[in-house]
């Protein structure tokens, strides 16, 4: 029984992570995009999502952003980077609570070019 459980967990843990309980959201900048400047970070959802945590990680570590959207459930979430964003690889990690009560998390990455 233990091995069945382990196999079940292992299968699930190694599978490619996708986003559950939310239809494919799209973002600004788009995932994997290369951009020159970033004026705003946006997340769009099909159903209202309460974004409870968001972080921007740049080439030199975590960077400050200001939430333009409050903590209410929204279909469009906006945040503004506070600092200048030097060229390099960036990623955004977010967590939230979906309308049906599921805890959600997601991430996307983009590159800022010179």
């Amino acid at each position, binding site marked *: *029984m233990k091995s069945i*459980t382990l196999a079940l967990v292992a299968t*699930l843990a190694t*599978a490619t992570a*996708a986003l559950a309980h939310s239809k494919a959201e799209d973002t600004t900048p788009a995932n994997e995009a290369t951009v020159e400047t970033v004026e705003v970070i946006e997340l769009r959802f099909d159903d209202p999502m*309460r974004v*409870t945590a968001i972080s921007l990680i740049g080439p030199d570590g975590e960077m400050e952003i200001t939430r333009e959207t409050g*903590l209410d459930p929204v279909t469009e979430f906006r945040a503004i980077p506070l600092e200048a964003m030097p060229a390099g690889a960036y990623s955004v990690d977010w967590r*939230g609570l979906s309308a*049906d009560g599921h805890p959600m998390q997601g991430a996307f990455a983009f590159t800022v070019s010179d």
Partner: protein
Amino acid sequence: MEGLAPIDGWALLAILAKAIGYAAALIAMGGPLFLAVFRSAPPDVRRIARKLAVIAALIGLAVLALRFGIRAARISGMGLSGATDTMMLGFVWDSPLGTAALWRGAGELLIVAVLIEGTIGMTASLLGALLIAMSYAFVGHSLGDPRWILAGLLVTHLLAAAFWVGSLAPLHRAAAKGENAALLHRFGTIASGTVAILVIVGVSFAWLMIGSPTGLFGTAYGWTLIIKIAVVTGLLGLAARNKLRLVPALASGAPSASARLRRSIRMEIIIVALILLATATLTSITTPPVNL
């Protein structure tokens, strides 16, 4: 695989807590259902059903509180300190889990009334079982459309499952004595009906969630469901063997029948635990294909 959420330690903990919550809820609901159906069962068997229902209800309440903390930790992204963050806990309370917790908590408290002999205790605890079943219709995938059909299917599925799961421990006790063969035979007859309902209702719900054969084989939800169905099939096989072979053997006074039947019921309990784990995985980290 399509439709699988990111999995970290907190997600695994959430699945485990949910599975324990399912077990507690089903045993708590199943106790009063068993007592209502088997009014003339021997006192020691009825005592087990009562005692387990109350213990399960109390564990259920504790798990409910724990799940609030786990969920707050997950949405905060802060780990353990998020589990006690009042703002994050407030968001969880405002979410459908908050509504579900009120109904489930009230239901689990009412289950404790099963300790009171007579009609009042029976009625209150059965109402508790209904509240617990209904609480599950306030969260998760049953919130989709068609809402009332999904909710109705889910409540029926849970009550039928609870009758079975909640009966296992009392039946394990009953199987110790050959004179209880009539009771076990009666359970087998009733269970043939309730299990049929359980399966039909479960398949209907799954069909509404999946919608196409590709959804079954192409998604994490579909594969987790396939695992669940495979384990359920094993359980049904075991149950059929109990009903058709071991219970008649017990009735005819075969010497090893009692030990074999009890071992088989213990095996059923282990299989049920696996099914609940698969179900908690299904409802936690996979997306039904209709929602993809």
